[in-house]
């Protein structure tokens, strides 16, 4: 079985069941184009009357939009009545196809799901071939809203009794995503409010700083944050009710009291544990058993090389140098006597725990030791070692051990303290929800003050006055470039090239037209600046190929649209969108007439130069 239905079979099947006209949503532009290829060699031709109707309608459209007169798909559209419609096509072509669909002249249009929202024409049937959609580099499952948006194209008001959404599988389709999409409720939408630099400047231009918090509070973002905060407040209220039995007892804040008491108690407990193993006599000796100390063992004497603790032993251990340079390990309990004599010992971290010279010297000194050496008098306190002062003090302050509600406190403590922790957590998050927008605004204000667009009293500086007119992505980078006088040359093609690389946010690879030295060095500067601004603003892609492409189009007025398309592997539609976005950015720069006349002039020159050929046809 084929992995998915052949486009020709699909169209044939739809025709046979009278399910045309149909929109077929495919995974990629390439899939759409390949489907068109297939129809090139196929005899599924329409009856001549319909062919003529399509030809006639196409003629009318091409008269308006001459750029598509030579479109390679026209023969297929005319003969077979199918077409491709995706973002890689020129807008004029898409308009033509939409017009043909509206007149009901086509049988099937192959489109990409990415454009489902922009496809503004209905059909009797939509065909869905996949359950995921490409969203910035990754494929994600279609949401319920998206499935319904797609299937919403099925069924034309006044022209169909019913609309049909037909699923036909392709590899890796997940049917449950689609069935859920058909039958489910669309997802709730969430605010995507972000605070941009131009927004801050424009707000501060029109409103005093102290009013801004009120304005931000009017956003849908804050509305939804408040909803979440209210939910938390309800939880908080419920917690208050649950906390009631754990109200004030003998002490008002018994939870904290018990907490510290309990902590101190446990702390003391662990201290005891470590010391329990050794008798007072041994403990008293430990401080004296340092490297170089002469000790008496059951048989003979030795010199301590190190004292250490070993996991398997309950007592501290010693490494001891014995006669004839023997090194032995033994527990401190095997030390019978501690003599009042020490030798210098240069310690090392590895065996034999002292330097070689020391070792040799100590061996000699051990041999030469007089037979009687005075024993060190060690005082042994029979009392238990006192607790550290801090613990004693803290325990002394506690009324708990004698308190009448002690047992109740002990019993309730775990629940009560958990509830109280939850309470504190909720209170904190409620506060964060209520003030997060304002904090983000303040952060932006600080950055703008740092760069000198705002005064310390949050008034717009002269720089801020014009910078607020740049209301596009990467506004900080653009205004900083203007301030650094990066575009002083006044060359419209350079300006357009740089703005194009800022405006283009698509990462589909394109071929590399030759880039002029002026542009490439300028682009290098822009890249450096963008990197230095990275902490304050996400850097743009800054693709050199799109910059070169736009530069070429502006610099060379004789270049035709076909010629431009040949320079790169980018699709026509993408080039068109790139130029349109660049125009948008240029028109923002053009608005700086009063402060930067030279720059605005070259922007308007660039705009006139860009708007020719295909770009003139459509607004």
């Amino acid at each position, binding site marked *: *079985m084929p992995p998915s239905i052949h486009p020709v079979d699909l169209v044939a099947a739809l025709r046979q069941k009278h399910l045309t006209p149909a929109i077929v949503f495919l995974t990629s532009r390439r899939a759409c184009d390949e489907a068109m290829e297939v129809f090139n060699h196929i005899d599924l031709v329409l009856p001549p009357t319909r062919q003529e109707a399509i030809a006639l309608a196409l003629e009318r459209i091409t008269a308006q939009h001459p750029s598509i007169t030579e479109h390679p798909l026209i023969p297929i559209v005319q003969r077979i009545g199918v077409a491709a419609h995706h973002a890689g096509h020129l807008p004029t072509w898409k308009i033509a196809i939409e017009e043909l669909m509206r007149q009901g002249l086509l049988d099937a249009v192959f489109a990409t799901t990415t454009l489902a929202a922009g496809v503004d024409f209905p059909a009797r049937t939509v065909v869905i071939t996949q359950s995921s959609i490409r969203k910035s580099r990754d494929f994600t499952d279609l949401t319920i809203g998206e499935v319904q948006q797609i299937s919403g194209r099925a069924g034309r008001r006044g022209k*169909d009794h*019913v609309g*049909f959404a037909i699923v036909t599988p392709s590899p890796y389709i997940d049917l449950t995503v689609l*069935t859920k999409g*058909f039958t489910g409720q669309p997802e709730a939408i969430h*605010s995507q409010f972000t605070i941009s630099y131009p927004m801050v400047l424009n707000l501060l231009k029109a409103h005093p700083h102290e009013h801004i918090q009120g304005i931000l509070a009017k956003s*849908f973002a804050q509305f939804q944050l408040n909803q979440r905060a209210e939910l938390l407040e309800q939880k908080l209220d419920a917690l208050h009710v649950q906390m009631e039995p754990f109200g004030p007892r003998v002490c008002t804040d018994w939870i904290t009291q018990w907490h510290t008491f309990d902590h101190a108690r446990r702390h003391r407990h662990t201290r005891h544990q470590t010391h329990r193993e050794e008798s007072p006599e041994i403990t008293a000796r430990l401080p004296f058993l340092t490297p170089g100390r002469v000790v008496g063992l059951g048989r003979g004497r030795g010199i301590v090389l190190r004292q250490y603790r070993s996991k398997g032993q309950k007592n501290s251990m010693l490494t001891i140098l014995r006669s004839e340079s023997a090194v032995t390990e033994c527990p401190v309990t095997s030390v019978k006597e501690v003599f009042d004599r020490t030798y210098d010992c240069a310690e090392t971290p590895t065996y034999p725990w002292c330097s070689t010279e020391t070792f040799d010297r100590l061996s000699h000194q051990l041999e030469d030791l007089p037979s009687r050496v005075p024993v060190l008098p060690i005082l042994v306190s029979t009392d238990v070692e006192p607790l550290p002062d801090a613990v004693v003090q803290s325990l002394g302050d506690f009324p708990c051990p004698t308190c009448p509600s002690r047992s109740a406190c002990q019993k309730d403590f775990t629940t009560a303290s958990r509830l109280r922790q939850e309470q504190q957590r909720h209170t904190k998050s409620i506060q964060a929800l209520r003030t997060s927008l304002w904090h983000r605004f303040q952060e932006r204000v600080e950055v703008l003050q740092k760069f000198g667009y705002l005064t310390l009293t949050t008034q717009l500086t002269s720089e801020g006055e014009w910078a607020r007119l740049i209301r596009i992505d990467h506004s900080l980078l653009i205004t900083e470039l203007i301030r650094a006088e990066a575009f002083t040359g006044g060359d419209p093609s350079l300006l357009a090239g740089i703005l194009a690389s800022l405006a283009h946010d698509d990462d589909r690879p394109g071929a590399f037209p030759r880039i002029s030295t002026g542009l490439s060095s300028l682009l290098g500067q822009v890249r450096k600046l963008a990197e230095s601004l990275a902490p304050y603003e996400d850097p743009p892609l800054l693709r050199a190929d799109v910059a070169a492409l736009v530069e070429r189009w502006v610099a060379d007025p004789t270049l035709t649209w076909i010629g431009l398309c040949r320079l790169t592997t980018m699709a026509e539609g993408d080039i068109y969108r790139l130029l349109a976005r660049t*125009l948008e950015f240029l028109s923002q720069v053009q608005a700086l007439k009063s402060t930067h006349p030279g720059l605005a002039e070259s922007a308007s020159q660039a705009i006139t130069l860009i708007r020719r050929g295909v770009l003139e046809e459509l*607004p």
Partner: protein
Amino acid sequence: MTTDELEQLLARQPVALLHRLARGRVHRHFRTGKRRLIELLLQHSSHNRAGFESDLQALIGEQHPRSESKSPRIHRPAAIAPKKASSRGAEPASDETAVSLSAWLEGLGVPAPQPFVPDPWQSEALSTLNDTDVVISVPTGSGKTYVAVEAARRAMEDNRSVIYTSPLKALSNTKYTEFSRIFGADNVGILTGDRQENGHAPLLIMTTEILRNLLYDAASGEIDVRLDTLGLVILDESQYLADPERGVVWEETIIFCPAQARLLLLSASIGNPQDIADWLTSIRSTTCRLVRHSKRTVPLRAGYLHPNGKLVPLFNTLGIPHGHPNQLHPEAKHLFLEYEEETLPSGRPRR
């Protein structure tokens, strides 16, 4: 059915029925008491009220005949029976009742031309717009444009100007052509990033970004005359409010929209249109009404086309079984399983 009614209805049911209802809906439902169970069920049903209610009705319907025939002698089998029935209960229509292809394809064709009569929701939206802002959330293709056109016509008859915004330049252009045809070229203007035509017409079409910029300029003192007489702002495709990059523009536009202008938000079906209406009410001087309906004007049917060219209905009901994603047509289910078996590389775990 309101939530209160539903709660009372649930409270009247025996706890066994509630547990059956909770199967697959509530995690570890068998450990909860009746009151808590009702609470959990209500919580769950907020996502899919229609499906929940129909399941409940099906279960109640099942309950009654059995309780009549119940006798002490066959007590044991009766206690087991609900288990079997419940798996049915979640999917009321069984294999035998699955819709046939011919029935599914029936009704295909072109309806006779009828004089245009606005749908009740359309008239409702228009009459509400006289007094309040309106949010419309209806499925794609139910005729939002009609409301926009009529609302614009009424505003223009009152000598108030109208701004219509759409998210895409291409859509703006389409609407420009369409509205020029309806109102006459003199009455319609367009403003996009790089196109300005007939900028002083009473009905202006623009992208939402342009309107936002206009509002900012007006707020900072560079008064734009058009905003004084602005009577209506129509924001098409308002579900763009949730667009990660551009959603903020819609919020700004709505926040700064002049108080004297009515707002008309047109949106495709979304999950929480009431939130948007509540939000508008909370920030604007007038209240905001929500007009929502989920029924499509042209009913939809879903089908499954196998790669070998065989066409079968996708669901075992004629229309879309809302709230029952698992009511697949047995044949579609079978064909798709076969398809998965053949196309999935061996060893790849099935989802």
